[in-house]
């Protein structure tokens, strides 16, 4: 185990190493491969890359790659024929000497290494890191200063800067457990969930709009976002978190969050006027399958949609087995939001209104019926004939696929082609207006409509078969897990237990995903949490633990953390504590012997120093609002316009019209799962920070506030402005250049108001590296 792990680890080899992909050799599958061609393999396999990369690959991977190149020109069909399930199982047997791919092996908690001459390690985590460092003759950086640590911790846990008072209180706290208490306090801070929800929302491509042409606002999906915030704040055990999102509808009777969390299955994009209903639904289910594999399992299963995976032992059949769990899904828009404690009263009110207004409503219904009928006819008539047949079938005769088609057709009655009543005859218009007036007389009885949900359930009738496209002969594929993950010892196939209103397929999937013996789930999640804290995961490709991804830099540490996470009830907050109390997390961002360390490990993958991190888009916005005293502390609720000074997590994300500021700083767009944001440095960012009027207004507010409470004189005020934005006061030199700035203003623009100078100074601070980066 130990030696395997050592060999499989992605160690740094100096500059020639290319970080993104030790296996640059011959990866040809594309996430959206709609017909990958094997021919491409030739161009990537031959030549320089494989030679350069071979050193990085464990023996088994090299063997795979070489074999593939030998069959380079084999047609795809032939390739499919030879890579049967038997072969995948056989591959496991044959490769026994090398063992299966590391990520498919069970994680076993390793012994914490005994380290020599180690005056640095504080926790087991550190000893794993220290051992790797010493193997390469590297030394860890010293501990960061207390003010630097507290600022890093606030951004890391609550996504916002500490106030000067909060910094002081920690810096002057000499108790031995001061750090642990601060960590605990911030984990209990409700802002923690608001910050940590963001990476999850990136992963699940959350947005508040449909995408595509109309990009309609989704008025209810924010409840899913609030659920994620709540789940992090409550430290929901990860298996429950998985279960909620994949099959919350089944537990909705016991858990008001169930239907809300199942909104996960509604997050994909949707096109309101797509007449190719078959194609649209196929794309929706495929994308649901892809995202599930990416997010929960960290395997690039999308590659297997069109053919057996080239480098991982994943079969095309595996793809459709996974998809089959989702086959019976129907989208539901008629389930009211959980209205805790008040639903009975609301129902009674509704019944009272319905009873009182029945006569009027019946007459209205009779009036509009022919108009509606006409629109229904037009709506349905635009679809291909087989889709129309699904719609016309009585529900009890429909299969799940028929129902899905009928649903897509029905939505277009509402969403497309305008108001069915736009053609009311003159006489009917008059009658209609009169009836509306009559109905309005009952408005005092009418309860507020319950907020709707975007959620799913399973179709109660026959489930349509899942078929592999172009398979010959076509045969239905049953829900199941990838062959490579089947246990030889005891069956770990998900046991599907039908529930009252569900096939139970998704619940079974969720249970299997979160099984303790699933080698991927906990590792993938632990790696994501590590990645959020350090910028890069122990596996740098957080969504791909397969052979196309990177190897872990610290495989044993990853195993140890994973085991510790599972042992501690899959508690995310526990994991945070383990990481945040380590010496490795608390290192300074500068190393006394940086040049030598950089030459050996330019990417700092062995963690010999902390790395500065640019604030994420949301952190920049939130910080700007916080340090200027403008941030509204409200939490939860429907998304707001970007102009409302609330935390960025509450700003509506519209897929086609992202907020320009957040977009410029690399916010996710909600189109694809994002496991790691780009960090760009662009002149667009500089222009926005320099010239965007809203920033200039914020600087003006900050100046006003400093004038009121930030001290009596200029020096005091600018000192406080720096403490607010940078988390520290100025050095003597910084104070001098600041005062020079004011002096230049005084002499060059004597007529300008002192207030404007202070505002300009604050605005410069917003642009400064010290504000935008965390050490």
């Amino acid at each position, binding site marked *: 185990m130990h030696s395997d792990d050592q060999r499989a680890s992605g160690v740094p080899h100096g500059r020639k190493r290319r970080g993104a992909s030790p296996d640059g050799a011959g990866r040809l599958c594309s996430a959206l491969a709609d017909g990958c061609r094997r021919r491409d393999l030739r161009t990537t396999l031959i030549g320089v890359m494989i030679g350069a990369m071979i050193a990085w690959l464990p023996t088994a991977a090299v063997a795979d790659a070489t074999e593939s190149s030998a069959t380079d020109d084999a047609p795809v069909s032939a390739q499919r024929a030879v890579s049967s399930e038997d072969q995948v199982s056989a591959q496991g047997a044959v490769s026994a000497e090398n063992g299966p791919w590391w990520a498919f092996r069970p994680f076993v908690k390793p012994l914490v290494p005994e380290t020599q001459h180690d005056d640095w390690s504080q926790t087991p985590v550190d000893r794993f890191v220290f051992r790797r460092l010493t193997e390469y003759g590297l030394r860890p950086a010293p501990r960061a200063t207390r003010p630097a640590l507290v600022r890093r911790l606030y951004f890391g846990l609550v996504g916002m800067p500490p106030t000067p008072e909060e910094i002081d209180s920690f810096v002057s706290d000499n108790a031995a457990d001061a750090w642990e208490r601060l960590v605990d306090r911030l984990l209990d801070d409700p802002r923690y969930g608001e910050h940590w929800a963001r990476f999850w929302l990136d992963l699940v491509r959350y947005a508040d709009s449909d995408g595509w042409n109309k990009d309609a606002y989704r008025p209810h999906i924010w409840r899913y976002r609030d659920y994620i915030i709540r789940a992090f704040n409550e430290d929901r055990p990860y298996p429950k978190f998985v279960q909620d999102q994949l099959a919350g509808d089944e537990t909705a009777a016991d858990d008001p969050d169930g239907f809300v969390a199942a909104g996960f299955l509604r997050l994909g994009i949707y096109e309101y006027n797509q007449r190719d209903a078959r194609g649209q639904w196929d794309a929706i289910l495929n994308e649901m399958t892809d995202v599930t594999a990416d997010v929960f399992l960290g395997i690039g299963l999308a590659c297997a949609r069109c053919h057996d995976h080239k480098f991982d032992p994943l079969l095309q059949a595996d793809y459709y087995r996974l998809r089959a769990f989702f086959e019976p899904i129907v989208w539901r828009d008629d389930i009211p939001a959980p209205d805790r404690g008040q639903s009975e009263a609301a129902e009674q009110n509704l019944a009272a209104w319905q009873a009182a207004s029945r006569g009027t409503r019946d007459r209205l219904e009779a009036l509009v019926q022919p108009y509606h009928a006409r629109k229904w006819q037009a709506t349905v008539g635009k679809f291909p004939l087989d889709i129309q047949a699904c719609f016309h079938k009585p529900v009890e005769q429909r299969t799940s696929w028929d129902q899905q088609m009928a649903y897509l057709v029905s939505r277009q009655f509402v969403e497309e082609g305008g108001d069915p009543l736009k053609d009311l005859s003159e006489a009917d218009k008059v009658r209609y207006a009169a009836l509306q007036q009559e109905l309005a007389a009952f408005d005092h009885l009418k309860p507020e409509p319950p907020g709707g949900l975007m959620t799913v359930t399973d179709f109660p009738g026959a489930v349509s078969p899942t078929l592999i496209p172009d398979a010959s002969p076509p045969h239905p594929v049953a829900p199941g897990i990838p062959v490579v993950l089947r246990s030889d010892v005891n069956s770990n196939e998900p046991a599907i237990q039908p529930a009252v209103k569900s096939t139970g397929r998704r619940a079974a999937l969720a249970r299997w995903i979160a099984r303790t013996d699933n080698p991927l789930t906990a590792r993938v999640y632990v790696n994501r949490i590590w990645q959020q804290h350090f910028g890069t995961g122990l596996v740098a490709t957080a969504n791909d633990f397969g052979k196309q991804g990177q190897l872990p830099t610290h495989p044993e540490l990853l195993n140890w953390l994973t085991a510790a996470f599972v042992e501690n009830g899959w508690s995310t907050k526990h994991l945070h504590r383990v990481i945040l109390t380590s010496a490795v997390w608390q290192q300074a961002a*500068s190393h006394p012997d940086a040049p030598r360390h950089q030459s050996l490990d330019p990417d700092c993958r062995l963690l010999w120093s902390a790395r500065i991190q*640019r604030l994420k888009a949301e952190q920049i916005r939130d910080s700007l609002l916080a340090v200027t005293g403008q941030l509204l502390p409200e939490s939860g609720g429907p998304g707001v316009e970007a102009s409302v000074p609330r935390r960025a997590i509450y700003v509506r994300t519209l897929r086609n019209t992202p907020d320009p500021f957040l977009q410029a700083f690399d916010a996710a767009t909600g189109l694809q799962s994002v496991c790691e944001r780009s960090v*760009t440095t*662009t002149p667009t960012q*500089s*222009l926005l920070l320099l010239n965007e009027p809203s920033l200039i207004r914020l600087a003006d507010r900050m100046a006003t506030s400093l004038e009121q409470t930030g001290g009596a004189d200029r020096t005091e005020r600018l000192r406080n402005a720096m403490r607010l934005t940078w988390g520290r006061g100025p050095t003597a030199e910084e104070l001098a250049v600041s005062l020079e700035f004011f002096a230049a203003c005084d002499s060059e623009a004597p007529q300008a108001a002192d207030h404007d100078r202070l505002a300009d100074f604050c605005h410069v601070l917003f642009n400064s590296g010290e504000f935008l980066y965390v050490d």
Partner: protein
Amino acid sequence: MTICALSNCGEPDASTGALSRREFMPHCAGGAAAIALNWLLQREACGKESSALAHHAASARNVIWLFMEGGPSHLDLLDPKPLLNQLAGTPLPATFREPLTAMGEKGSPLLAAPRRWKQHGDSGLWASEWIPEIGACLDDIAVIRSCWTNGINHAGGVCQMNTCINVAGRPSLGAWVHYGLGASSDDLPSFVVMCDTAGRPVNGSRNWGSGFMPASHQGVQFSSSPDPPIPALHPPAGISPERQHRKLALLKEFNRSHAAARVQQSELEARVRSYELAFRMQAHAPAAVDLSQETESTRVLYGLDQKEAEGFGRICLLGRRLVERGVRFVQLYSGTGSKWDSHTAIEANHSQLCRSMDRPVAGLLQDLKQRGLLEQTLVIWGGEFGRTPMSEKGNGRDHNPTGFSMWMAGGGVRGGQVIGATDDLGLYAVEDRMHVRDIHASILALLGLDHRELTYDHSGRPERPTINEGEFNRRLIGG
């Protein structure tokens, strides 16, 4: 870290002899604190000449893509079909497979294309009465009559024409070119997009987005009015240049000392320089879009004297000015917001839109030619799909993704030729078919990039601009 990688730039790797920027850029994007500087650092580190990074000799250095948004009718512009007029009023013959259409009208009769057609120039290529000016340029144009795509709707179609697939989230072609060739200008973005009206194209800015690549590769939208062409280019009114300068001077002090205390973290240096570049943009972008520097005859050439043509003419002229200043990839939207979409009354719709587009496009081609820029500038014309031979609502046409026309000129393309053909009614592409993937592969090839060699590592997967498909159609260059 990116900077480490950048320092390698341009130096052949000892072990491979051929480490190009393309190969380590994925590294830049993959690393945690990785940054991808916009054009500045790429240019500084790698040199400005795109050919240094190309896979093979390029015939085109620039692209101006004229995007007719909404889908113009090939049947009424470039692909005459006598049989259509003969069968007008009757249903689609049974020998033609009825396609799935966006608006779903079933069994609608064929709609005549009552155009006067004319053969032009030495090549004798056909153009209809609606585009006489473009017709006069046909000797420089290769008309592709056999284009096809997948999306039946605008959103999918426009998405696919820009990103190669009708599924949202991939990088646009302009972003791939920027990624592949690096920055092309000192003072301006390399990839600029403009629209003929204040409207917004279907899908918005993600049509020129960078998908899973860093945002530094995405297109920058210029507004067609000069004040200002880019949002936040200038400080708000009331902030004098001196005042801005004082602020920038202080900022530079702060950022320099911040970076100096963190020599290990080289991306801070990039942030310092991004302000210098922003400053240069402030100086150069307004001049680039200042049409007062153009002569009256040039303005007339682009149709700026005609009310209908003024909107698109203006951005065509701006396109030329940007290309002259080193912008590599320009995309110009005509009929922004699906205006070419003509489900009803195609006669009124298309005759008006053609008047808004014909003179500017022809003017652009003539102007590029007379300035010697056409040889190195690939001009692409087309929509996200064409239109059906079947009628819709009596006098319109529905979307036709299965066969439509585009054209290319300049940038090494051999003009005066027709590539491919649709069937006798113009419904399906049947000869020398060119899928969007082939079109993108061809554009990349003309720019010196091989669509199979250009890869970007995303989540451990090597992504390619044409999704592992597509072929360069060498007939474009006379092959």
